[in-house]
C-alpha cells in the first residue's frame, strides 16, 4: 500500500555524497588490512568443520572434487557473484529463534523490526515497513508474497524451525533469475530432505511468551524413498504497550505437513510437499469512517488459514546438465474484520541447465502463474473489482561464460515477464566474477529490476486516516488507486569481495548503489465535504519520487577454536529520495524509516561435548521517521544434551530491558513493544 498518509514529521537528509566517498576510502583500507592480516597468520586447520561441510554434499559433487584442492570447489558460496549469506540448520538451532522473521534477523544486512507479537517489518537495503514490497521470499520454491500489496504476511508463514535446512539470503537484485519484486533481495527458505530427518522428534517449548509443540516423524518408504510428517502448534502471548498494558496481539496457529523425497531412478528425483495451517492473530487497528466518531481503535481478530501442494521433478542429464519441473497450488485465506481475502495461486516452472562447451554454462526457464482471488471489503477498505484473475508469463536466460579458466567469469542474462498490470517487463543483469585465488572472490554487477504494480496499486479504496483540526471538520484521507500506477524501476550497481584467508576465517564485503525511478507516492487532491460531515482528502497513487540508496555490508566469520564460533557484521545504509512534482508530504519518508547503522555479533561456544552457550547481540541506530531510539538487544541461549537423544534448552530474549519499541506502523495503530521473555524447551529424538 505504497505509503500511507498522516501526520508524520518530515525527515532531514543527514548524509551527503561526500559521505559515500568517505565510506569508500574506509572500505578499501579495511579490505587491504584484512588481506594483509590474513597472509601474516599461521594456517589454522579445522578438519571438523571441513568434513562437516563436505558431508552435506551429494556423492556426485564429492566425486567431482579434485582431491588435491578440496577447499576450492566445496564452497559454491565462495563463487557466487552476489552478496549472499546462508543460515544453516545448526545456526538456527543454536539461536533459539522460533519464527522466520526472527531467523532473518540473524542474517547480516537484513532489516528486521518487530511491529507487534505477530507482525514484522522485514526488508533489505531500505524501504522497510509493515507493507514493504521490494523483497522476494520463497519457501521450498513457493512464493510467499501476497499479490494484494507485494509484501509478505509474516504471521501467515509458519514453518517449524527444526525442519529448516538453510535460509539463503541474497542482498540486492535477484531479478534476472527470480523475477519481479526481487528488487532489494531474495530470501530462499529450504526445508530438510526427508532422508535427513529420519526417526521421531518431540519438542516442547514453554516460555513467558511462547507455548509450542513440534512433532515430527520420518521413515523410509521404499528403497530410495523417504517420507516425513510433522505437526506444530503454538501460542505466542501478547506484548505490551508503552505503559505495560496488554497490547492484544497474541498469535495462535496449528500447522501440519509432509515431505516425500524419492530417488525414482539413478537420474530422476521427486520431491512432494504438502502443508496446511489454521490460526488466529490479534491486531490493534485504527479505523477511519465518514460518520462520527470518524476514527476509532479496535482490537481485531484475524483468521488465517491455508493449504498448499508442491511437486518438483529433477532429472540429471548426461554432459553435466539437468532440468527441473515444478508445479504448485497454494490456497490462502485471511479474514480481517474489514477485509477478507481468498487467494488461489497455481504456478508451474521449468528450468534447464546445460553445458554449451567446456567454459560455457547456460540456464534458461519458463514459468506461468495464475492468481485467482476474491476480496470481501467494507466501507473502510475495499477492492474494485472484488474478484480478479491475473496471469503472469515469464522466461529467463542466463549464460555463465568462463573467460579465463578458473579466474574470470562473465554472467549475463535477463528475465522477461508479462503481467496483467504493467504488461511486458525486461530485467537484465550483468555480472563479472573474478577469482584471483581459490580463497579470494571479487565480483561486480549491474542490474535492472522492477517492482510491478500490485492489486493495491490499482484496485484499492481505503480510508487511511483521520486528522482532527481544532475548530474544523475531521479530515478523512481516502486513497483510491484508480490511477494506473506505473512500474518502479531500479538500476543497481554492486561490488563485492569475499575472502577466506584460513579455513576458520572468512570475510565478506559488499558495496551497493541503487538508482530508483518512479517510486510510488500518494498524490493529494482537492478536499471536498462528505454528507456525513467530514472533509475528504482524496489521495491517488502516483509515481512522483525518485531516489538513490547506497551503503555497504561487512561480515566476518571466525572460529578461533573448534569449540567457539563467532560471526560479526556491520551494515551502513543511506537513502536519498527526491519528490518530482509530487504532492505527497511523505514522498521522502523512507529516508528516515531505516537505521543508517546496523551491527550484530553472534557467538556459539561449546562449553562441553553436550553443552552449548549462544549469545546474540543486535544493535541498530535510531529510526527518526518512526521515532524509534537506537536499540541494543541481547539474547542468550543455553543448550544441554544430558543424553544423546534428549536436549534441554533455556534462554532469554531481549535481556537488557523490560520492553522497547522496534518500529512503528505507518498506519498509526499505536505501538506494541517487544518485551523481555524467557523460555525453556525439551526435545526428544527417537
Amino acid at each position, binding site marked *: 500500500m505504497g505509503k500511507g498518509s498522516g501526520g508524520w514529521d518530515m525527515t532531514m537528509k543527514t548524509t551527503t555524497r561526500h559521505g559515500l566517498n568517505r565510506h569508500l576510502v574506509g572500505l578499501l583500507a579495511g579490505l587491504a588490512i584484512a588481506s594483509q592480516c590474513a597472509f601474516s597468520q599461521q594456517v589454522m586447520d579445522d578438519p571438523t568443520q571441513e568434513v562437516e561441510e563436505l558431508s552435506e554434499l551429494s556423492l556426485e559433487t564429492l566425486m567431482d572434487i579434485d582431491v588435491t584442492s578440496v577447499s576450492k570447489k566445496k564452497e559454491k558460496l565462495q563463487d557466487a557473484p552476489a552478496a549472499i549469506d546462508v543460515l544453516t540448520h545448526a545456526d538456527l538451532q543454536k539461536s533459539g529463534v522460533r519464527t522466520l522473521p526472527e531467523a532473518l534477523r540473524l542474517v547480516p544486512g537484513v532489516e528486521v523490526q518487530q511491529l507487534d507479537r505477530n507482525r514484522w517489518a522485514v526488508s533489505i537495503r531500505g524501504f522497510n515497513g509493515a507493507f514493504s514490497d521490494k523483497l522476494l521470499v520463497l519457501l521450498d520454491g513457493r512464493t510467499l508474497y501476497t499479490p494484494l500489496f507485494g509484501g509478505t504476511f509474516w504471521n501467515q508463514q509458519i514453518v517449524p524451525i527444526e525442519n529448516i535446512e538453510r535460509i539463503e539470503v541474497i542482498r540486492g537484485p535477484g531479478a534476472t533469475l527470480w523475477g519481479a519484486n526481487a528488487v532489494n533481495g531474495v530470501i530462499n527458505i529450504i526445508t530438510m530432505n526427508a532422508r535427513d530427518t529420519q526417526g521421531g522428534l518431540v519438542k516442547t517449548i514453554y516460555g513467558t511468551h511462547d507455548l509450542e509443540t513440534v512433532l515430527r516423524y520420518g521413515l523410509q518408504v521404499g528403497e*530410495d524413498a523417504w517420507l516425513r510428517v510433522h505437526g506444530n502448534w503454538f501460542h505466542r502471548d501478547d506484548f505490551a504497550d508503552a505503559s505495560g498494558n496488554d497490547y492484544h496481539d497474541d498469535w495462535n496457529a496449528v500447522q501440519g505437513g509432509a515431505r516425500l523425497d524419492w530417488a525414482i531412478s539413478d537420474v530422476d528425483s521427486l520431491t512432494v510437499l504438502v502443508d496446511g495451517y489454521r490460526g488466529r492473530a490479534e491486531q490493534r487497528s485504527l479505523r477511519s469512517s465518514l460518520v462520527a466518531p470518524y476514527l476509532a481503535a479496535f482490537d481485531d481478530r484475524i483468521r488465517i488459514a491455508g493449504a498448499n501442494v508442491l511437486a518438483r521433478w529433477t532429472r540429471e542429464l548426461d554432459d553435466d546438465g539437468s532440468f527441473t519441473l515444478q508445479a504448485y497450488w497454494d490456497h490462502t485465506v485471511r479474514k480481517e474484520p474489514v477485509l477478507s481475502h481468498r487467494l488461489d495461486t497455481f504456478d508451474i516452472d521449468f528450468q534447464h541447465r546445460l553445458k554449451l562447451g567446456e567454459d560455457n554454462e547456460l540456464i534458461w526457464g519458463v514459468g506461468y502463474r495464475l492468481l485467482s482471488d476474491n476480496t470481501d471489503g467494507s466501507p473502510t477498505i475495499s477492492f474494485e473489482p472484488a474478484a480478479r484473475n491475473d496471469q503472469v508469463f515469464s522466461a529467463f536466460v542466463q549464460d555463465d561464460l568462463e573467460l579465463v579458466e578458473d579466474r574470470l567469469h562473465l554472467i549475463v542474462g535477463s528475465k522477461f515477464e508479462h503481467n496483467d498490470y504493467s504488461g511486458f517487463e525486461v530485467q537484465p543483469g550483468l555480472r563479472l566474477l573474478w577469482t584471483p585465488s581459490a580463497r579470494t572472490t571479487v565480483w561486480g554487477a549491474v542490474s535492472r529490476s522492477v517492482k510491478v504494480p500490485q492489486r493495491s496499486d490499482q484496485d484499492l479504496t481505503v480510508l487511511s486516516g483521520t486528522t482532527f483540526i481544532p475548530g474544523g471538520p475531521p479530515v478523512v484521507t481516502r486513497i483510491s488507486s484508480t490511477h494506473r500506477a506505473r512500474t518502479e524501476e531500479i538500476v543497481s550497481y554492486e561490488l563485492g569481495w569475499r575472502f577466506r584467508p584460513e579455513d576458520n576465517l572468512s570475510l565478506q564485503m559488499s558495496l551497493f548503489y541503487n538508482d530508483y525511478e518512479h517510486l510510488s507516492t500518494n498524490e493529494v487532491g482537492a478536499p471536498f465535504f462528505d454528507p456525513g460531515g467530514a472533509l475528504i482528502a482524496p489521495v491517488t497513487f502516483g509515481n512522483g519520487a525518485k531516489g538513490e540508496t547506497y551503503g555497504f555490508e561487512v561480515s566476518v566469520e571466525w572460529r578461533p577454536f573448534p569449540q567457539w564460533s563467532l560471526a560479526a557484521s556491520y551494515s551502513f545504509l543511506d537513502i536519498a529520495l527526491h519528490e518530482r512534482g509530487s504532492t505527497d508530504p511523505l514522498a521522502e519518508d523512507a529516508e528516515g524509516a531505516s537505521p543508517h547503522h546496523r551491527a550484530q555479533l553472534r557467538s556459539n561456544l561449546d562449553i562441553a561435548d553436550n553443552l552449548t552457550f549462544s549469545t546474540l547481540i543486535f544493535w541498530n541506530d535510531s529510526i527518526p521517521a518512526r521515532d524509534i531510539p537506537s536499540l541494543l538487544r541481547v539474547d542468550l541461549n543455553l543448550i544441554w544434551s544430558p543424553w544423546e537423544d534428549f536436549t534441554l534448552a533455556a534462554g532469554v530474549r531481549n535481556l537488557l530491558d523490560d520492553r522497547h519499541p522496534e518500529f512503528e506502523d505507518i498506519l498509526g495503530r499505536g505501538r506494541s513493544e517487544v518485551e523481555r521473555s524467557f523460555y525453556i524447551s525439551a526435545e526428544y529424538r527417537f
Partner: protein
Amino acid sequence: MSHDAPQRHRLPTPTPRLRILVVAVGVWLALISHPPTAAGGAGVPTDGTEGETQREYRLKAAFIYRICQYVTLPSSNLPPGSKTYVIGLVGPDPYGAALDALAGKKSSGGRVVQIQRFRTVKAIRNCQVLIASPRLSDADLRAVLNKARAMKAFTISDASNFAAKGGMIALEIRKKKLRFDVNLGAAKKSSITISARLLKLADTVIRAKGVH
C-alpha cells in the same frame, strides 16, 4: 540441539589462547609499521603435500558417511530399535580427526553415528560399518573380512583392490578424483542391500559371488 556440530575436545588450555593473543598483537603492530599497499588477492596460501593427504582423508570420511546412507543393513546387525550407528576403523588410522567429525551426525535411519577404532582384528566389536585401514596386511584384511561377514557389517576401504579381495566398497583415487568399485556379491552374502543409485555411480560392479 547441537547435534550438528558435536565437539569432542575440551576447551583449550590458556596457553594457546595466550599465544594467539600475542600473534594477534604482533600482526597488528606489523600492520601499523608496514601500511598495506594492495587490496586483496595478492597471493595464495600454499598447500603442502601433507595438507593434500589430510584433505584426501577428509574427503574420504565425508564420502563414507554419504555412501552409508545408500546402504541397508540386515536387522540382525541393526535391530529396528537401536539408536547408534557405529562406524569402526580397524588398523593404523590415516583419517584422524576427519573421521571423528562424523560422530554425532545422523545415519539415514536417524541413528547417531559413533566412531570406534580397533587396533587389531581381535579387538573388533559389533559395528555397522567397518573401515579397513589401507595399511593392513593381506592376511589381516582376510581376517577382518571374515569377522565382518560374521556380524554382517558393511565393509569399505581404500586398501588397494579391496573389492577384488572381498570387500564391499573399494575407494580409489583415479585422475585426482574419488571413485569407487562395488562387490555386490560380497554385500549379498551379508544380506546387505546397496542402492541402485550407488551402483550407477560406481566405476566397476562385481556381481559374481566370488569371494576369496
